[in-house]
């Protein structure tokens, strides 16, 4: 009885935090300039995408390099729904989630028997191969891609309400909702099952857990979330094309997830902010050094990769977790 009471308290506290978050974002979007608002939208997208990887890799232990491709699936689905089927925006996002989830289920079924580098390599091959597939089908717009237009902000929000603010609001709201949903999933029986599998598959099996089904479920959910992120990303860009989902994107997501600590949802914010900040930082550094174009174009990629390696080597469980672990160790040694 006491436990259920505690869970309820925790849930209402979470809901309160999320509402608070929403209010904060509302105010922020009012006072910050356009570029930052746009970046804010991108951060929100990354938060969603990174959380999907946290779910998949941090919780169920499956490494995917193909989430860029899954995002592409969601984005294309949303765009096709908009252009061909003329669905209202909300439904387009739903379509994105479903389409990507289906893709995830297929991929998950294939991946369920794989582990470690085999899974990573397979998803790598997918990440390289899938986006270019869009060039083959004219309904997908070929090389130039499809238009994805979410329309103007409703007049009821006032004339000063810019397009970018509208993006930010949609993305931000989606991010808040997704975080809440994901948090609940991770805290539920499913989350526990995944962690059991990641810890020790054989032991989990002996506890009656159906490994394959659980893994496929993780992939499906993770893919759906990634699909949402993909559709939102396309919203901010305005079009969907293969070039928006290069291999580098999957890398960045992985980096963001590792930075965030792979198991801490809160860390997803850190990861997302860093990812968006890197091109800016790279720009500044490149200008300071007065470097050539070659350096400027490649510096962001370099920084992301360097960050990835440094994090994995020295802060493997993410800065949040590392801090926590260090505090715990201090406490233990004192006794």
């Amino acid at each position, binding site marked *: 009885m006491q436990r259920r009471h505690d869970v309820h308290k925790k849930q209402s506290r979470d809901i309160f935090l999320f509402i608070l978050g929403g209010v904060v974002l509302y105010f922020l979007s009012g006072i910050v300039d356009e570029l930052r608002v746009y970046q804010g939208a991108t951060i929100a997208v990354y938060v969603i995408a990174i959380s999907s990887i946290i779910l998949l890799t941090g919780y169920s232990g499956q490494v995917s390099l193909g989430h860029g491709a899954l995002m592409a699936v969601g984005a294309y689905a949303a765009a096709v729904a908009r252009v061909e089927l003329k669905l209202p925006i909300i439904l387009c996002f739903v379509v994105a989630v479903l389409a990507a989830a289906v893709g995830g289920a297929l991929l998950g079924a294939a991946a369920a028997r794989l*582990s470690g580098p085999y899974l*990573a390599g397979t998803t*790598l091959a997918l990440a390289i191969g899938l986006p*270019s597939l869009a*060039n083959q089908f004219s309904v997908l717009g070929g090389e130039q891609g499809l238009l994805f237009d979410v329309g103007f902000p409703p007049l009821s929000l006032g004339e000063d309400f810019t397009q970018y603010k509208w993006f930010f609001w949609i993305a931000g709201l989606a991010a808040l909702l997704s975080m809440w949903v994901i948090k609940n999933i991770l805290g539920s029986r499913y989350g526990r099952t995944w962690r059991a599998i990641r810890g020790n598959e054989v032991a989990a099996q002996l506890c009656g857990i159906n490994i394959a089904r659980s893994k496929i479920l993780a992939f499906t959910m993770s893919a759906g979330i990634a699909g949402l992120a993909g559709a939102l990303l396309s919203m901010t860009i305005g079009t969907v094309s293969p070039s928006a989902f290069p291999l580098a994107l999957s890398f960045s997501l992985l980096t963001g997830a590792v930075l965030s600590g792979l198991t801490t949802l809160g860390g997803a914010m850190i990861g997302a902010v860093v990812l968006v900040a890197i091109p800016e930082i790279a720009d500044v550094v490149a200008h300071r050094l007065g470097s050539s174009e070659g350096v400027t174009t490649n510096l962001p990629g370099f920084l992301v990769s360097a960050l990835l390696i440094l994090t994995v*080597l020295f802060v493997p*469980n993410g800065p949040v977790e590392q801090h926590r672990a260090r505090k715990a160790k201090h406490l233990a040694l004192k006794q």
Partner: protein
Amino acid sequence: MDLVNTFLIGITAGTIYGLMAISMVLVWRSTRVVNFAQAGMALLSTYFGYEAVSRLGSFWIALPIAMIGGALVAALVEMVLIRLLVKHSTSGPIAGVAPIIATLGLLGIIRSVSAMIWGGQDLRIVGPVSNDGFTINGTTLVFSPLKLLILVIVLVLMLILSIVFQKTNIGLALRASAHAPEIARLSGIKVDWVRTLGWALSGAAGAVAGMFQTVNGNGTLSPDSIEFSLLLVSGFIAAVIGGLDSLIGAVIGGLVLGLMISFVLMYVSSGLFFIAPFVILLTVLFIRPQGLFGAKAARRA
């Protein structure tokens, strides 16, 4: 005629994939890590080769230089990266995936640094023999002296490496260090150096693959090139097809992959260039997850 050409193109591409696969198998057999940065290191070595060719004018001198460069880079990576990895990341959710992520990060770094130094320009390496097809009875095959040379060299390399692994003391030390590092230590083997050697060998093999992949194509060298992406994926896929544990498997896996891609491109659709490797990989993993020559336990890395 089309059939013959398709077959020959597939075989040649396949031998290069086989080489990349050999270098991945070498790393796997000596340190039980899948080195996703392999293609990146091959690219870097090829740039070394390019510098050598443009300064010294000879492909045959440039090739060993690329190989030595590749070996040194690989050894350096092992000494710095992998040993750090082993020390720091052996617990927590990151443990299983840490080497994968680290090598991926390395790939990104090598790619971007190469692009910074050499990128943007179109660099070419010219092969040592002509890439014009043999002419038999008036028809010109796609198969050329260059392709024949590649085939021969790859087979010879594979043979040499197999002999080293199976018949020599150093090969035994390499295998023991990969399977059971602690037992190897207790047998007096300097496991750290042996692992570095495994990486160095793999770096040299990757260099050869990179050099030949470049001259076999149209000779252009660039970090964003199609050849590079393909090399990236195919080395791994070929190794998986053959079974990560087997050098012979690596070569055969490469040939199989090369042939399959070639036939798909010719007879199904040329647009499937990028997705074909993925589908082939999935099929193999479904039908025979341990690869053609792999041991049963190999799949669960």
